């Protein structure tokens, strides 16, 4: 279908972009890779009056290492993250997660910043970003602020970004010590979206017991969430089979699980537990 009429703006700098956004606020949408917004516009489920295309701003697509952090520009495509040899070495969760997104065409155009700002309840990036405890840098006409990943996802398709803010950068503490990561997903066969997706980032101490662990789960509830109950059970414990299975049983504690035509609530709950267990086991085996 054909989208409703809109004005198309092409800022060349991020300052110009936030200025335009401040001017149009409620009527405007920021266009990144366009692989969620454009389909919604074509179906006329989204009808912004102004589209601010940040694709022509130079220097928004990058992967850098700075001050013990990995810094990723919001316009970095899924494919750039998937194919980064350096990331495979220092933070393999990111390439692994991006490889699960949509298909090659989507990964070539879609961006990590666009995906996070859209906050699809079954998006893959939010799970990884939560598990790894990233920080998100938002910029507006008033300046910059940093938002913790756990505070960023407010509800379905709703983030902590204010109407005048653009997501500029993702910051991740470079994993160190004996760390292991994993992303496991059951993809909906038609859409490729996660029926359940579980990201795990953990570290082991000298004795092999779990020192820290982050578990992010997507596709299950109205928004991505951190499986704190699972993390609590495992912190400080040796990750043997029974311990992990018992912990994974808490994957949906305190969460209102959603169902749809493809997967009922009970089935999703079951998948969440199974995939949480598998993702933790995979991450633990990689840490050794």
């Amino acid at each position, binding site marked *: 279908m054909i989208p409703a009429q809109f004005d198309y703006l092409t800022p060349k700098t991020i300052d110009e972009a936030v200025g335009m956004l401040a001017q149009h606020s409620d009527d405007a*949408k920021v266009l990144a890779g366009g692989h969620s*917004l454009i*389909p*919604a516009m074509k*179906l*006329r*489920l*989204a*009808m*912004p009056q102004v589209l601010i295309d940040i694709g022509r701003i130079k220097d928004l697509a990058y992967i850098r290492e700075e001050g013990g952090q990995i810094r990723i520009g919001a316009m970095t495509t899924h494919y750039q993250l998937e194919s980064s040899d350096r990331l495979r070495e220092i933070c393999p969760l990111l390439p692994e997660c991006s490889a699960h997104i949509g298909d090659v065409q989507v990964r070539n155009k879609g961006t990590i910043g666009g995906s996070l700002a*859209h*906050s699809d*309840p*079954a998006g893959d990036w939010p799970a990884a970003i939560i598990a790894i405890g990233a920080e998100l840098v938002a910029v507006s006409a008033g300046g910059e602020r940093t938002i913790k990943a756990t505070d960023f996802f*407010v*509800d*379905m*398709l*709703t983030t902590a970004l204010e109407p005048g803010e653009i997501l500029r950068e993702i910051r991740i503490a470079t994993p160190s010590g004996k760390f292991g990561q994993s992303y496991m997903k059951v993809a*909906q066969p038609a*859409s490729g*979206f996660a029926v359940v997706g579980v990201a795990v980032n953990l570290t082991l101490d000298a004795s092999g017991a779990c020192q820290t662990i982050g578990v992010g789960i997507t596709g299950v*509830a*109205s928004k991505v969430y951190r499986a704190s109950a699972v993390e609590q059970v495992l912190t400080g414990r040796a990750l043997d089979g029974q311990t992990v299975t018992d912990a994974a049983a808490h994957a949906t504690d305190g969460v*209102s699980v*959603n*169902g*749809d*035509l*493809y997967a009922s609530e009970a089935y999703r709950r079951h998948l969440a537990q199974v995939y949480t267990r598998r993702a933790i086991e995979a991450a633990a085996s990689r840490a050794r």
Partner: protein
Amino acid sequence: MKIEGTHELHASPQRVFEALTDPIVLQRCIPGCERLERSGENSYAATLRAGVGSIKGVFTGAVRLEDVQPPRHFRMIVEGKGQPGFVKGSGDLDIEARDAVTIVSYKGDIQVGGTIAGVGQRMLQGAVKMMASQFFTAIEAEAKTESHEPPPKHGFFRTALRWFSGLVRRVFRKTVTK
């Protein structure tokens, strides 16, 4: 699609019932409601700009209340259509006093068709839950005021803040009772 839910409101059952059946209050509380007019006894015509995030659509439709038993029960029949699709459904709403709070529970069956059902099916249940909790948070704020007082202000952030403080209160109470 079957929908059901329970919300705990800190207000008297009588005030909650009044709020839930007052078109002026409802218009303020239903997320995105632009118009709600009485079109007959217990029936109303409505225009709704409903949606989540950037996904929004305008629906027009009718709401009818049946089996009205103040202050504890009514049945609601909704029918609406708009550019993104149509919605049709009915449900029972029960209001019950328990200790110092009022429990509102709803249970119903809704049919959604058109574009929104075709491409948004996986998000429907979540969207309904999200809008229901925004709605009941706003209703709670309304029912807490006395009838002669000015109405509370609703906005996304005020509603979110109220929802959050309610959550903190519940978590806190759980910790205390343990």
